[in-house]
């Protein structure tokens, strides 16, 4: 079993895990961080999105062993104590979620999207969230939430 060392939400973690452990299983089962969800078997839904070295990726489609030495941030790692991340606050205030299953992935994906470009058009937001599927909201309030968050994040 390989030993994998990475930073998860700012803390250094070291674990021995089977080679075939997916990052999402490592996060949910080894680390107990169940905010990152699994929604599909086909790498299409985006419920599992986390940040690796600042970039959004699908944690269901990468092995934890590939990320030895990496810096991983999950939905649990973005709030500042009791203060929600502006993206979380915007989803909360704009009714950007219903069942909430897609939300962690949406939020993590949207944060990277806005950090790269704070002046996004509605079309750019919709295209930017192509990798995230939501079966409840119809996306309308998700787009509104991201627009609101972009303003809060300095757009």
């Amino acid at each position: 079993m390989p030993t994998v060392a990475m930073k998860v939400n700012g803390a250094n973690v070291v674990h021995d895990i089977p080679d075939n452990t997916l990052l999402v299983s490592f996060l949910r089962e080894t680390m107990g961080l169940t905010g990152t969800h699994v929604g599909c078997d086909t790498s299409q839904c985006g419920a599992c999105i986390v940040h690796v070295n600042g970039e959004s990726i699908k944690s269901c489609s990468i092995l934890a062993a590939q990320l030895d030495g990496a810096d991983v941030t999950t939905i649990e790692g973005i709030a500042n104590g009791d203060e929600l991340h502006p993206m979380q606050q915007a989803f909360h205030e704009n009714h950007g979620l219903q069942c909430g299953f897609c939300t962690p992935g949406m939020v993590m994906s949207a944060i990277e999207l806005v950090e790269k470009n704070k002046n996004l058009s509605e079309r750019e937001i919709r295209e930017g969230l192509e990798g995230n599927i939501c079966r409840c909201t119809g996306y309308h309030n998700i787009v509104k939430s991201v627009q609101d968050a972009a303003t809060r994040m300095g757009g």
Partner: protein
Amino acid sequence: MYSTKYVKARDIDDAVKALKSADDGKFLAGGMTLIPTLKQRLANPDCLVDLSACGLSSIDDEGSAIRIGAMTRHVDVAESALVQKAIPALTHLAAHIGDRQVRNRGTIGGSLANNDPAACYPAALLALGGTVHTQSRSIAAEDYFDGMFETALEEDEIIHAVSLPKPEKAAYVKFPNPASRYAMVGVFVAKFADGVRVAVTGAGEDGVFRAHDLEAALNANFSADAIADGMVSSDGLMSDIHASADYRAHLIGEMTRRAVNACT
């Protein structure tokens, strides 16, 4: 996912050695095709040889062509000023593969090695008349593709890089599958001083192919009007739940017209 062994290769020699010492090893690039395949237990390799530390990520200007390292990710091609200047059609192609997370991981080498019949890069390689470079040889696009998911690559052959000649103008237009974003039909049109090349992906029963009839029409008259309805035969085209062969034939004509109009 079946159990397997993971090895991060230090360089290409190390990667080839690791693959040779496994019974049924596989190279791992961005994993955007391979990992989903493993998750669904459609493959059972005993060893995964990660190429990410082999130094294969690069984009260079070679004068009449650009050379892209195999591990260069779709996002890197999409955001490259060099590619945008030399072959803007390629920037557009890379920027529309899958979604942002797929582009943050998936690589040009992985896409070409996999040769999915609905993938985008195979159309670019064939229309641009590019070359695939491995540790032992250089393979011209014409000799590289060998039917669906099949290529001229040997088991232990690693793509180092691809060279893509700069066209006078080019465009890639795809009709994306609404769920996966793969091409239901994708057409890459490239105009060179010595003629026009048209490559079609997403449609052929044997994977990517050149549409010689459309090339002849565009060589006579490089205009969308040169592509008449019914010019594309449905012989040899795929029929599946997404589209019939006839519909794909229609889409090839329409995507070609749009590509000619979009050529820059």
